[in-house]
């Protein structure tokens, strides 16, 4: 059994857990940044920016997130290749969309056809992170926008009475205070992000779902040193337990954090 669990393939499986954790670690701050940008844009005084922010916030809510995942991966990939194509091959005359094909010159391919395997994997992972960040950024923008609205109006008015400019009031009064209002929504979002990580599988990254299917299935196992039947059930049970433990742990940590942050704040959260 110990030998079985330490084959090279299994290290791929363990490594994919690291992939998922790295994805979470990278995506969460990026999405928060996107969200902050979106929420600030929705408050902007410059109308096009405000419209952009509002649309960004509202469109993701009505549409299944998985549709966005599938959409952005191709769209971003084509977008990057299109930009590189314009830059690298200016004298290309053929059309890029030829009927049902998307053709760019070979120098603009991303990653390059000659690139080693790991570049392809890193690029796929990068696209996945960007996709996650865009989708969850919209959710975060929604939460942060609500949090900004929740900061008592009197606080801003006081800041203005002290002669602060709009920008100063935003950075020195609004932003420090909004986090406590945003925290319940953000912790909810973190849970959601954890639970969305298996969707990496759909984005073509070799994640834990991919390995669980591969390792558990009989096809490979029959020709390896350790033949076994269909064990996918047990692999997925292990994944379920992993996720349960992970969400449970986050729940405990986040509730501690909420209690600490709401200390001394005049919200209901301080008593609850």
């Amino acid at each position, binding site marked *: 059994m110990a030998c079985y669990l330490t084959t090279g393939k299994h290290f791929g499986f363990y490594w994919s857990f690291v992939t998922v954790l790295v994805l979470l670690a990278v995506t969460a701050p990026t999405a928060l940044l996107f969200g902050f940008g979106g929420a600030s844009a929705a408050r902007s005084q410059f109308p096009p920016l405000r419209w952009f922010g509002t649309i960004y916030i509202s*469109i993701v*809510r*009505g*549409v*299944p*997130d*998985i*549709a*966005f995942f*599938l*959409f952005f991966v*191709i*769209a971003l990939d*084509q977008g990057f290749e299109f930009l590189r194509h314009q830059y690298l091959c200016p004298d290309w005359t053929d059309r890029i*969309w030829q009927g*049902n*094909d*998307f053709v760019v010159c070979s120098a603009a391919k991303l990653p390059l056809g000659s690139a080693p395997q790991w570049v392809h994997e890193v690029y796929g992972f990068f696209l996945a992170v960007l996709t996650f960040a865009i989708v969850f950024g919209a*959710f975060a923008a*929604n939460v942060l926008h*609500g949090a900004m609205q929740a900061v008592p109006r009197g606080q801003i008015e006081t800041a203005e009475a002290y002669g602060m400019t709009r920008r100063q009031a935003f950075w020195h009064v609004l932003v420090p205070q909004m986090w406590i209002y945003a925290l319940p*929504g953000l912790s*909810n979002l973190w849970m*959601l992000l*954890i*639970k*969305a*990580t*298996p*969707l990496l*599988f*759909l984005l073509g990254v070799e994640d834990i*779902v991919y390995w*669980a*299917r591969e390792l558990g299935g009989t096809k490979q196992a029959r020709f390896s040193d350790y033949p076994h039947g*269909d064990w*996918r*059930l047990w692999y*997925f*049970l292990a*994944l*379920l337990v992993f*996720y*349960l433990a992970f*969400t*449970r742990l986050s729940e405990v940590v986040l509730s501690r954090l909420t209690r600490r942050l709401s200390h001394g704040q005049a919200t209901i959260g301080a008593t609850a």
Partner: protein
Amino acid sequence: MSCWQTVQDYGLRAIGIGERLLPREGFDLCQQFTLIGSGLIWNVYFGLLALLVGFFIANAVALCKASSNPWIRKPAEWFILVFRGSPLFIQFFLAYFIFLRIKQAGYMPWLTSAQAGALIVLVLNTAAYSGEIFFGALRTVPRGEVEAADAYGFTGWKRFVSIVWPTTMRLAWPAYTNEAIFLFHATTLVFFSGFPTWRQQGDALYYANYFADKTFNPFIPYPIVAFYFILLTLALIGSFGLVNQRLNRHLPQERRTRLKFRPNIIR
């Protein structure tokens, strides 16, 4: 081929009526709209049935969780923990392989089909999420209402049915609306998890993915899916709003809570 012809061929393709082969060329707007729209049949099927069955289970789960008897309370708590704490995607996979085992043992072979198996997962999943919502609402029923019921001599089942339960629903309804919306969104996952598609009869996203794969152009099929789902979401908000109105009909006009779409509880 005219657009009307396409609608006749592919309008009910998702449930196996009409043309057998999916379109191989053309891929014009009409084809995409028709086929993706016909896939929506399955989204509505999964969503409505899961919502309907899940509603009753959720009520039972909430009551069990509120019970003082640990033999009843603990299973309900674990049920909610397991289904809310793990990704739906993993639940689909796990359930599929469990159903596969059952099929291999010679019982209930229909369980491995998406239409039955995935529906069971969705029912249990939504039961857990809404059960938690109902449980939260059950605990916030005003004490005064219960005391008033006691004073009028209501006891046991009668008190629950005519006093506690309507208030619970009233309190839970806005959150439950969100849950329903996200349940419908979650139905798009079905054909991307372990469950196989039978004769290419998939849901809206399945067909959108088909078109995106064929044309390498994601900018048409996915916005069509988005369009359909926004319509579906609006319809849901509308019908849940009607129920909300009925639930709050005894309140004066200005104190009624309007339903607002706040996606706080998401899978």
